[in-house]
């Protein structure tokens, strides 16, 4: 997939340039890269919020350009930009997205009760979203992405700005999703999360996927154990060229 934007001052910008990877059910694929590398744009294209300029992606047999609504029905998308409706309660919000996903009232009730129990959210289910703490908000967002039980989950920097305990809950939850057989794609720049969670990872810089494989594969290829050192080896030469 590629995505180009037109900028009045800078001309054409290649935000994502020919990025290609696969992620299987029960697998976690992590996109690693600095701010502005193209992670969010890639994930937005997979969630059909943006349309690729070139190329396409297929999720659960549905093409992101041809059948965006079917793709979205199979995806749970969570990013730093997916906020909550301030004047709805946590339960109302989750129910709203359940209904939009076509759930009937009986299934919806069972699903909501199950998720609220699993994520320990019953203490604030009737509280308005603008009165929730950051951690409670993030749990509500997760409940929102889970309500239609999608086979694919996309997380864009899901732990950014969270305290240690909440971040830990999220990481455990992502790991739990994998165990349930979901395909998970997530972006981060926290190395410990990658080491703990991911099966495959891709290093993205300036819109290009520079390296990808399993963590052991990348360690062997670049002769480094530390992920940070691997990234420096992959991205460093490009940065030096740009400076020169």
């Amino acid at each position, binding site marked *: 997939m590629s995505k180009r934007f037109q900028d009045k001052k800078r001309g054409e910008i290649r935000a994502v340039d020919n990025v290609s990877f696969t992620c299987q059910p029960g697998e976690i694929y992590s996109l690693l890269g600095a701010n502005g590398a193209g992670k969010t744009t890639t994930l937005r294209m997979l969630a059909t919020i943006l349309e690729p300029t070139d190329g396409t992606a297929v999720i659960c047999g549905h093409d992101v350009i041809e059948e965006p609504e079917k793709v979205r029905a199979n995806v749970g998308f969570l990013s730093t*930009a997916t906020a909550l*409706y301030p004047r709805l309660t946590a339960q109302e919000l989750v129910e709203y997205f359940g209904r939009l996903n076509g759930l009937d009232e009986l299934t919806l009730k069972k699903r909501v009760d199950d998720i609220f129990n699993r994520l320990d959210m019953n203490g604030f289910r009737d509280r308005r979203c603008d009165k929730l703490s950051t951690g409670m908000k993030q749990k509500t967002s997760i409940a929102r992405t889970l309500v239609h039980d999608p086979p694919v989950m996309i997380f864009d920097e899901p732990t950014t700005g969270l305290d240690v305990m909440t971040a830990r809950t999220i990481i455990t939850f992502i790991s739990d999703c994998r165990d349930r057989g979901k395909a998970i794609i997530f972006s981060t720049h926290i190395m410990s999360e990658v080491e703990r969670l991911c099966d495959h990872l891709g290093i993205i810089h300036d819109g290009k996927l520079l390296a990808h494989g399993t963590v052991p594969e990348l360690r062997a290829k670049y002769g480094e154990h530390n992920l940070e050192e691997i990234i420096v080896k992959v991205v460093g030469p490009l940065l030096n060229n740009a400076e020169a």
Partner: protein
Amino acid sequence: MNFRNIGIVYGKELTEWLRDKRTLISTVLVPLLAFPILMVGMTSLMTVMIGRAEKETAKIMIIGGEDSTQVLEKLRRVKDLEIVPYADDWMKRISEKEIRAAVDVPKGFDSALGQGKELTVKIYFYQGEIKSSFGANHLEKFFDDYRDSVISSRLAARNLPTDIIKPFAVKQENVAPPEKVSGAALGGLLGYMVILLSMTGAIYPAIDLTAGEKERGTMETILSSPLSRVDLVLGKFFLVLSASLSTAILSIISMGTSFYLVGHSGAMAKKDAAAFQLHIGLPAVLSVFLMALPLAVLFAAALLTIALFAKSYKEAQSYLTPMTFIVVIPAVASLLPGFDLNPKLALVPILSTSLVCKEIVAGTFHWNYILLILLSSSVYAAAALFIAVKMFQRESVLFRS
């Protein structure tokens, strides 16, 4: 298009809208309470103030007239006037409201009257200053009465009857039924108010549902759901339309109540109160709303589109506030004399609706124009809605940064 999804979006937007305190204030409290309070309060206050000003003794000054003791003596006896001694700066004193008016009695006034010479009495006052006008009116009435008494005595001296100078009387009689009278006076106003209020009522929700969502970060949340963009726009559009119409309906109910209260409060003289007695029937009011419906659709769709283009709430406000003028100008133009419906004007949005509403309230139904206007404004409304849907499908608008 999925009606179930449109309904779900509408229901959610309605819940959020009703829970917003700003909605309660701008859509319910202000129109329901502000109009009656302003109307009743202002008219009562005005009646009291004007009544007091009329009853107050007016300080006036006499310029000249030293040789005309007869008229001065009569002037001094007028109970609503207090004569202050002459000063050279009388004009300044009128301007500074120390005295209400001044009267210039020509030299030799008394003797000239006896000889039947033509005279001019000048009254000086400050135009636009109500108390000064009242003072000048008192003076004018005194001199009118004095002139009449002089005429009567001259006629009596010649043994002539008083009606010799008034061989016949002239009187105007109204033949228009009451609803036509109030229709002409208030008809334009009703259409104008409905049009303007359905516009202003749509502004806040249109911003909140588009630029507001962008600012709060919920736009991406909803775009990641399987909901189609068409259903999303339509759900939002119906909410903005509901807000627009409910603002207009509540305001009209409130205005009607205010007029009723003012007309029946006894705060005004019967003659003035009659002007507030509305004789606009329910069918006329409903017809006005029917005519304004396509316009409300046009406003809701257009405002949604423009507000969606903005990156933030503030930016959207700066785009939409000038829109009020675009609506006010043609709506006001329709109230001006000389603007009458014709086939070309029937195609001009806002102006045509405002003109036809004026006619409807006055009891005239031009069916050919009504159909033409309904058709043309429906076409404009459909075009605006189509553009709104298209804008919601453009990434450059949704993610403008």
